[in-house]
């Protein structure tokens, strides 16, 4: 019986991944989720995941635990059982906050990964190990980023990036004894089918600021592609790469790639055109699209706002930084290996020009809020 152990199933990607895996199961299979919390919380979370998955082709269970704890905080009997049953591990748990300390980021992202790898090594079936990383382990590097090993030297913009680079290095080391696949995600956005997403974060913050007329400028090169990857495509691609398309030891950019991405300079005009089409009140404001400026100009603008001490605009800029810092180091995530691996999968990703309106429409309808 196939047993798939998944961490991080409550994250934006994780919950979509469970849905994708559950719907792709054939034969006798079960999914075991590692969920944090007491019995009641775990049960509630499990119910939400099952509800999100809908028609699963396998049973979905949960074990209480925490990646930051030795042996994942799972009781001994269950842990031993997992080592006998598990045939695949999908490690999606991560602290994706951009402002955490090095210690906090390392605790979840590095130690947590080490703990999950330890389980994998103890499993008798030598399970396939899928590690969900981030393409932004590239940190401050610019230009074409290949689907290859990256160093842990940096430079990095955040402790999140640094910790994910270290975690990736651990997984790469483990590939000598385990069949691992490193799956680096780009900027994850809503489903290309209907725009639904678990949290309106990252670029959605930028969109929301533009909706309120508070976005003056974005740093970067107007022609640089911004890699938005819809969460449903990402989940389905990972499912394929871990099943039929599995290749041990490979690293993939689970990204849209430059050829399916919009240039930075085209994104906000398109987003704002959708706002205007959907909302007469927005149209009446006539807010200008933000200008795309060099990182140096953007930094001067931030410094000036700091200098004059405008608290609201300062807060706006701080909120933007998780997104804008990446724009300041223009890069193009190659998806050559991913594209080859997905041949025959039947998966297709629209161009961002086609799915971005769907994302914006959903965000506007939902008022940038996720219903409970």
């Amino acid at each position, binding site marked *: 019986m196939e047993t798939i152990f998944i961490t991080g199933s409550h994250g934006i990607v994780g919950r979509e991944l469970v849905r994708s895996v559950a719907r792709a199961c054939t034969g006798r299979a079960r999914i075991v989720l590692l969920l944090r919390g007491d019995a009641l919380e775990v049960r509630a979370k499990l119910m939400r995941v099952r509800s999100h998955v809908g028609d699963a082709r396998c049973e979905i269970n949960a074990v209480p635990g925490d990646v930051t704890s030795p042996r994942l905080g799972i009781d001994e009997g269950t842990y031993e059982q997992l080592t006998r049953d598990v045939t695949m591990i999908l490690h999606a748990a991560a602290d994706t906050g951009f402002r955490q300390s090095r210690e906090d980021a390392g605790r979840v992202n590095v130690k947590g990964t080490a703990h999950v790898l330890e389980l994998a090594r103890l499993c008798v079936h030598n399970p396939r190990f899928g590690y969900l990383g981030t393409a932004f382990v590239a940190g401050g590097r610019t230009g074409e980023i290949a689907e290859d090993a990256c160093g842990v030297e940096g430079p990095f913009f955040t402790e999140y990036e640094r910790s994910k680079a270290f975690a990736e290095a651990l997984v790469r080391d483990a590939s000598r004894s385990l069949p691992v696949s490193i799956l680096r995600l780009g900027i994850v956005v809503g489903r290309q089918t209907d725009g639904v997403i678990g949290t309106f974060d990252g670029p959605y913050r930028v969109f929301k600021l533009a909706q309120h007329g508070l976005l*003056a400028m974005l740093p970067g090169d107007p022609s640089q592609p911004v890699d938005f990857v819809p969460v449903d495509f990402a989940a389905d691609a990972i499912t394929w790469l871990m099943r039929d398309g599995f290749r041990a030891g490979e690293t993939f950019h689970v990204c849209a790639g430059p050829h399916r991405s919009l240039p930075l300079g085209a994104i906000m005009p398109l987003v704002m055109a959708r706002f205007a089409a959907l909302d007469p009140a927005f149209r009446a404001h006539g807010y200008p699209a933000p200008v795309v400026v060099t990182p140096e100009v953007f930094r001067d603008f931030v410094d000036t706002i700091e200098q004059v001490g405008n608290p609201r605009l300062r807060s*706006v800029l701080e909120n933007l930084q998780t997104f804008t810092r990446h724009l300041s180091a223009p890069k193009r995530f190659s998806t050559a290996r991913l594209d080859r691996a997905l041949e025959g999968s039947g998966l297709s990703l629209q161009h961002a020009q086609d799915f971005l309106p769907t994302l914006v429409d959903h965000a506007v309808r939902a008022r940038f809020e996720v219903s409970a």
Partner: protein
Amino acid sequence: MAMTPALAVGIQALGYYLPPRTETVETLHASGRTTTRPEQLRGLGYAEVHVAGSMTTVEMARSAIADLQRRSDVDLGRVSLILYGGALATSSVIEVSAEQHAELERNPLPLFRFPGTRLQAELGLPHAAVIGVSQLACNAFHGCLRIARALLVAEPGLDSILCVAADKFPEHANREVVFNLMSDGACAAIVRRDEPRGRILGTSQITRGTYWDGESRHDALVAAYFPLARQAVYEAVASAGLSIGDIHCFVPHNFSVRSWEILSRILEIDHAKVFLDNVARIGHVVASDNVINYVDAVSRGRIRPGDKVALFVTGFGAHFSCTIVEA
């Protein structure tokens, strides 16, 4: 494609007036007339402002016209229209005394005393019609130029139009507006048909009423400033049939030097082309910055005959205007 009218309309003469009394950022702050600390204001490029004191706006306007006459020896007798611009709401009516203000409910007639007609009377120009231009904030003078140009094209009977703007802040008012330090002052120009000097090649004006309440929409207005400033400049340049690289000198409103360091890079222009010599010395003179800076840039050799010059200004409301002139 250029949208220059068939008739050449140009600026024959320019003049300005700054009241002699000055105050430093330190004295202003000490008396509670700035919000930001003096060292921060100096960091933004400001040092002093000019304060009118008891001088009225009409007196400043007359002084600006006298300066214009000194510089150009023009014949005011040819003026057939006065366009009087007031940036501040209070600049569009004659100041009333405290006693008159208290009596306004009983006697509202002082509310109908306007500076444009008073100026006409004091200048002795009974044959010049008067039109007041208000509600454009610091863009008032640009509004005057734009209307003058259009009227000279539309009405063959008009020959010379006197454009004037004059503003003063209340004596004890805070002189810091959206991180800019404000001076009192006035400016004047004679705009004529078939005038080879100061030919107006193109204009632009963007108005976004969503920012009409500059206080409650302050942050959104700050966010809109750079994108709309860029748009206004590029539209004016295009309307003149030019490209941004053709502009020899950018005559700014005296927003902070810091803001111009940013805007010049957004406009993708050489920062050295922006005439910023006056910011520290005079601050932002409401609607008169462009004229003051243009005149001074000419006298310092920064603008030479034949140069293409962009005059840009932003005002509450919000308005963004740019006029392209061939010196």
